[in-house]
């Protein structure tokens, strides 16, 4: 289903500059990333708290601490003095990431509905079919269960397919393939097969797209063992995560958001990747930790402006990695602020927030001064009417109220 590209207009100005950017040459990226390795090792990289400055971009990080939100002029000024980079929209960043990986590795192929000749319903695969041909950019019939399964099968032999669900909701038709084959084959074969597949697509609540096209599949997929889930939120991390996901030997489900495709940002010219398991420090603070991801990041940053005016200092972390959670970054933040607010777009029951609450409570209960608050969408099918749909998702005003309550 093709849909109109809806940009969160205000968010363009709100998009944070990459305070966690790091020079990819300094960061050793090994394909077999495991959580335990990260926890203990000390990498010579920028931690996502943005305080370690390895490069001139760190200047922006320091400016961030005093501002609630990084303004475009700051980032432009800072970046043009170091490396100019280039400005683009989020869907173009995804396309760049895809294109660069396809050039780099001939085993990468794309399959999905309308990705080839049509150029992709959100233009993420625009121009790829012309460049790489029909065998590497495959227009599939409308048969999600089959072509996802076929992608997984191809991945078992070593190909690296990128499967697109035109809307994440359609991947429900492929749930069996994703759960049983994609997630479990590496385990059940005793390690013989790896499934280096990337399953991507837009999800989340858009602009009145109706109940079936506004689903948040991260809550359904989070239980599947063996897969990784990431959610991009800015052009910078979209490109970085896309490249990392393609290079990863594990199956990665890559969540994009229907309303974020038109975000504009300046990203570096050079090759870079983002760590798949790492959270992003959007705004360091002292009073409360706000954990969020994808579109809700922008609602949080909007609320942060109001909160700063009211005298609060929220620490905003974009968790990015939905499975596994970056408990290292989150834990450090909890140990600092002692208060946690989770703002998510999933429904309250069984969402990412619910799991995150459990994880934080289990690991960091002693550091909490107040019960964890979680703001999620209502437990209802997303209605079509605009006014009702607005009430379904978390709005910035509710975030401000929640922080005030939490910090009493």
């Amino acid at each position, binding site marked *: 289903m093709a849909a109109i590209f809806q940009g969160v207009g205000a968010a363009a100005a709100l998009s944070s500059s990459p305070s966690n950017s790091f020079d990819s040459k300094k960061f050793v990226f090994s394909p077999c990333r495991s959580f335990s390795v990260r926890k203990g090792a000390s990498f010579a990289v920028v931690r996502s708290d943005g305080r370690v400055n390895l490069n001139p971009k760190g200047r922006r990080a320091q400016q961030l601490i005093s501002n609630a939100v990084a303004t475009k002029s700051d980032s432009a000024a800072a970046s043009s003095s170091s490396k100019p980079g280039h400005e683009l929209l989020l869907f173009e960043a995804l396309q760049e990431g895809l294109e660069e990986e396809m050039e780099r590795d001939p085993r990468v192929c794309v399959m999905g509905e309308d990705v080839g000749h049509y150029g992709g319903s959100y233009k993420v695969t625009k121009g790829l079919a012309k460049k790489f041909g029909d065998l590497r950019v495959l227009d599939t019939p409308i048969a999600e269960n089959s072509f996802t399964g076929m992608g997984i099968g191809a991945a078992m032999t070593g190909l690296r397919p990128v499967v697109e669900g035109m809307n994440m909701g359609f991947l429900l038709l492929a749930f069996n393939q994703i759960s049983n084959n994609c997630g479990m084959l590496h385990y059940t074969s005793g390690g013989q097969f790896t499934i280096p597949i990337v399953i991507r697509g837009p999800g989340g609540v858009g602009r009145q797209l109706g109940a079936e096209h506004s689903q948040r599949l991260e809550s359904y997929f989070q239980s599947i063992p063996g897969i990784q889930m990431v959610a991009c939120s800015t052009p910078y991390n979209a490109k970085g995560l896309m490249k990392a996901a393609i290079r990863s030997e594990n199956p990665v489900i890559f969540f994009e958001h229907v309303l974020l495709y038109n975000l504009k940002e300046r990203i570096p010219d050079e090759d870079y990747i983002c760590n798949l398991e790492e959270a992003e420090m959007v705004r360091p603070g002292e009073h409360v930790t706000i954990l969020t991801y994808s579109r809700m990041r922008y609602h949080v940053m909007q609320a942060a402006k109001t909160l700063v005016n009211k005298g609060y200092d929220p620490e905003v972390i974009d968790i990015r990695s939905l499975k596994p959670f970056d408990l290292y970054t989150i834990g450090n933040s909890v140990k600092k602020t002692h208060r946690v607010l989770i703002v998510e777009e999933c429904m309250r029951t069984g969402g990412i927030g619910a799991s995150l609450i459990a994880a934080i409570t289990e690991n960091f209960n002693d550091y909490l001064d107040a019960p964890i608050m979680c703001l999620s969408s209502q*437990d209802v099918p997303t209605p079509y009417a605009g006014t009702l749909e607005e009430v379904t998702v978390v709005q910035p005003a509710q975030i401000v109220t929640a922080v005030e309550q939490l910090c009493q």
Partner: protein
Amino acid sequence: MALSHLAASASRSSSLLKPLSSALSLRRSISGDNSPLTVETSVPFTSHQCEAPSRSVETNPKELLTFFRDMALMRRMEIAADSLYKAKLIRGFCHLYDGQEAVAVGMEAAITKKDCIITAYRDHCTFVSRGGTLLEVFAELMGRQAGCSKGKGGSMHFYKKDSNFYGGHGIVGAQVPLGCGLAFAQKYSKDETVTFALYGDGAANQGQLFEALNISALWDLPAILVCENNHYGMGTAEWRAAKSPAYYKRGDYVPGLKVDGMDALAVKQACKFAKEHALKNGPIILEMDTYRYHGHSMSDPGSTYRTRDEISGVRQERDPIERIRKLILSHDLATEKELKDVEKEVRKEVDDAIAQAKESPMPEPSELFTNVYAKGLGVESFGADRKEVRATLP
């Protein structure tokens, strides 16, 4: 395009029509009468594993005029929806049916309201042919309370239970197993009714279709699977998505019939035939060869994967409304002016409905929580924040 063989029917009809035409000019609106008329379909039916029905369709002036009016109404409604979408009163997805009206209208003429119809997301016109009002359509499209789903469903979720219209589904192909389930229920209650499960040429490649077809054939269900083949599945042409574009043959052991979907009379004949067949012998597939003028949805220009010449060519040669118009005029059932008046009337009706729909209010915030469960469960919903919006689901 050959419309009808006048030789057979002209002598019969002209003797009937002379008094009729004078009577018509006295009335403000034309309604025709029930005197029988036989019209030949434009192309013969092609069949698979069954005997094709005859090319000669029994009809009457009243029916033809009703066809004209209904199709003109649907066409106007879809064009009005197009403008409303561009004016941002309709948001999200909007899939328009103009060009395909003959399928909805012809099918309705062959069946009763006790037979079930289920379709995908291109459902505005099917809803109207099942008895939905224009107000319900426009109010739902604009997300207002007066809409058929109280504004909570949107363009892809029109339903009308009392006339057995089961929707209105967004996920491609998912409505076909539902349709076979409806047929199962009909067989179970021995209703002597059938179900028409409509889907597109894109959905024809869904696995669940074949699963449902197998089970329906196994259990002899009165299910009629109707493939509305408009030759493009979203942005992909049918030859790029299907190895065999003969959708009516895909049932293999299930008989099929290929129909010119731009000819309302052919559709009517086929559906009548299919209903008789399904009640006796189990499932049958109908392939309606049709065309949509708009793109897949309002955000698809519709011209990146097909040429404008193709679109205008079909519009000139195969337009369903034009065909009926020519038929009516050639049989002297109404004058050119009277038909134009009908179109004006229809346009006014649509405009009135839009104005009325615009006045309908947006749903109340409490509506967010109604109809999640059927009444009486009393589940508490916490949602976005636990203090501000807390409701017990009614």
